[in-house]
């Protein structure tokens, strides 16, 4: 068990280093940082000064080390566009994105899992077919269209919920939360629903497919042959075996939700990291992009590892030696 954790940790560090390398290469070799940061008419001395300040005259390996040590401490340089420290900008925006993703995930799970179970147990029911069709539409409609529709209905026509911004936020130390104010919560609803909706259909289809597969397996057949009640078979035997692979995939989906938050934040002007990233891509603001890359990679690697450990803890085939 310990060996497993250690191995995964080392793997994670290696992946992070690889990502750091890519981020650094982006940072260093794409475009010219000096030219991007200074106005056109800057003098040669100014450029040289900046060059030295950024350490661009050092050998590449030294630069990379500086980059990595800086990154570990959360130091990512200066944004080309805003001329502010990237780390500051990220710290400002991170809570917004994380709260959004969390809310969306909870919404998606609470809706998706029960619907998937229902669809698996009643494959020919009318409601099942309807859900199937709706979920198919769900993955065909681009997320931003859903967002626009939501805004159209709930903001423009019904005027129930706000359609941009975070509402009032409360500052707790370094974290700013929107969960503690009424306007904050109201502003969270539409974006969370939009972000989560895509996942709902995914989770529902996944749970349904997995469960139907499990319901066809031999041990379920044997359980029925032993005369166990439908409840025992469906919720005891089948559900347990269904949820295990579902957990892995849902965990990984959390990571992708952070990426999809980019779209949600754009539609709702939600001041999170995603919006920051898009503005950076649009402007070719490399430092912000590479910082975002490292941050997201970190979150991914962390989630992957947690999911693996979870699997290890839950599956007796892995945790109990034969």
């Amino acid at each position, binding site marked *: 068990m310990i060996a497993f954790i250690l191995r995964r940790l080392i793997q994670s560090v290696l992946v992070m280093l690889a990502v750091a390398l890519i981020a650094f290469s982006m940072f260093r070799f794409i475009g010219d940082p000096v030219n991007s940061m200074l106005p056109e008419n800057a003098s040669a001395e100014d450029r040289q000064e900046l060059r030295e300040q950024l350490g661009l005259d050092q050998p590449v390996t030294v630069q990379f080390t500086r980059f990595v040590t800086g990154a570990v401490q959360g130091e990512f340089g200066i944004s080309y566009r805003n001329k502010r420290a990237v780390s500051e900008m990220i710290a400002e925006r991170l809570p917004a994105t994380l709260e959004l993703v969390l809310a969306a995930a909870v919404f998606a799970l609470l809706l998706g899992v029960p619907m998937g179970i229902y669809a698996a147990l009643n494959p020919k029911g009318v409601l099942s077919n309807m859900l199937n069709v709706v979920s198919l539409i769900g993955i065909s409609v681009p997320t931003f269209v859903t967002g626009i529709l939501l805004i159209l209905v709930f903001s423009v026509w019904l005027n129930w919920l706000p359609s941009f911004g975070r509402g009032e936020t409360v500052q707790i130390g370094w974290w700013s939360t929107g969960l503690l104010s009424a306007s904050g919560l109201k502003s969270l609803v539409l974006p969370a629903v939009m972000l989560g909706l895509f996942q709902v259909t995914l989770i529902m289809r996944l749970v349904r497919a997995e469960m139907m597969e499990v319901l066809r*397996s*031999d*041990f379920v*057949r*044997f*359980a*029925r*042959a*032993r*005369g*166990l*009640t*439908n409840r*025992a078979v469906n919720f*005891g*035997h089948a559900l*347990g*075996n269904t949820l*295990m692979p579902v957990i892995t995939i849902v965990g990984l989906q959390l990571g992708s939700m952070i990426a999809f938050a980019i779209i949600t934040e754009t539609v709702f002007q939600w001041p999170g990291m995603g919006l920051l990233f898009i503005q950076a891509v649009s402007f070719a603001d490399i430092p912000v992009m590479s910082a975002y890359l490292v941050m997201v990679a970190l979150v991914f690697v962390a989630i992957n590892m947690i999911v693996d450990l979870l699997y290890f803890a839950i*599956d*007796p*085939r892995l945790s*109990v030696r*034969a």
Partner: protein
Amino acid sequence: MTFQTTPLLSVRDLSICFDTRHGPLRAVDGITFDLAPGEILGMVGESGAGKSLTGTAITGLLERPGRIDRGEIHFEGQRIDTLSAEAMRRLRGRKIGAIFQDPLTSLNPLMTVGQQLIQTIRTHLKLDQAAARKRAIDFLGEVGIPAPEARVDQYPHQFSGGMRQRVVIALALCAEPSLVIADEPTTALDVSIQAQILDLLKRMCREHGAAVILVTHDMGVIAETADRVAVMYSGRVVEIGPVDKVVRDPHHPYTRGLMQSIPRVGSNAHRLTQIDGAMPRLTDLPTGCAFHPRCPRAVAECKTTRPAALPVEGGHVACHLYQGEPA
């Protein structure tokens, strides 16, 4: 063979068909047999002959597109093929048990062996947790699992293949059914383990008073274990009778072919005898007797009329050659 006790299981003219877009395909066509309490009946035949389907129909687990088209199944004097799903469920496990082929996939990998046993026991018998656990441990001991008190809390992957099948047998019998349907119980096991498991099955059923329908394609298994045997071909029973009689002196040409094709140690044959041709596909069933295209002794009648089950010593055979034979 005449005993006057009511048969435990009585199958009459059972037909199972599958609805496909080519029309209904008859996979089992009018089979009839009885099973006495405590008796071991073997059902032997090639893959696709319909033996597993018969077992599935008896336990009420037949799923669409298959359905019972015709016929009746009576169990302990009561008709069961028309029972509701819930009534059938209560019968399963408690009165009719089942054992499947692959012990590896028959057990839920996420639950301990004990949990699965206790759950089955408590579903059918009114026992509390402690009593059920004790019964589970006892059963594990009976089927030959060493140190059952320790192993009852282990997971299936911690058992070897043969051990798992023992657990499966325990699971099938723990609610004391009077009929067990064993579908190829030893096919997935090592040859060395097969004999052990068959012995165990025979012993457990004898001790707990359960009759067995042993479905297999292996005549050797039947010869070792069964009291009577029903030979199936193309969804029909072609011969049924006491095992020693059918094995030593088969009546039906198909059974004869089967017996002859078993290689014997010490024989000097250069080629193994085989029956020419193959079992017909369900979409191209021959008229009359299903076996007649491959039968070395077919007569004109075989092509036109399906043979009825004619009595021969101790059993029946569905072949025109035996009309007028003494019972």
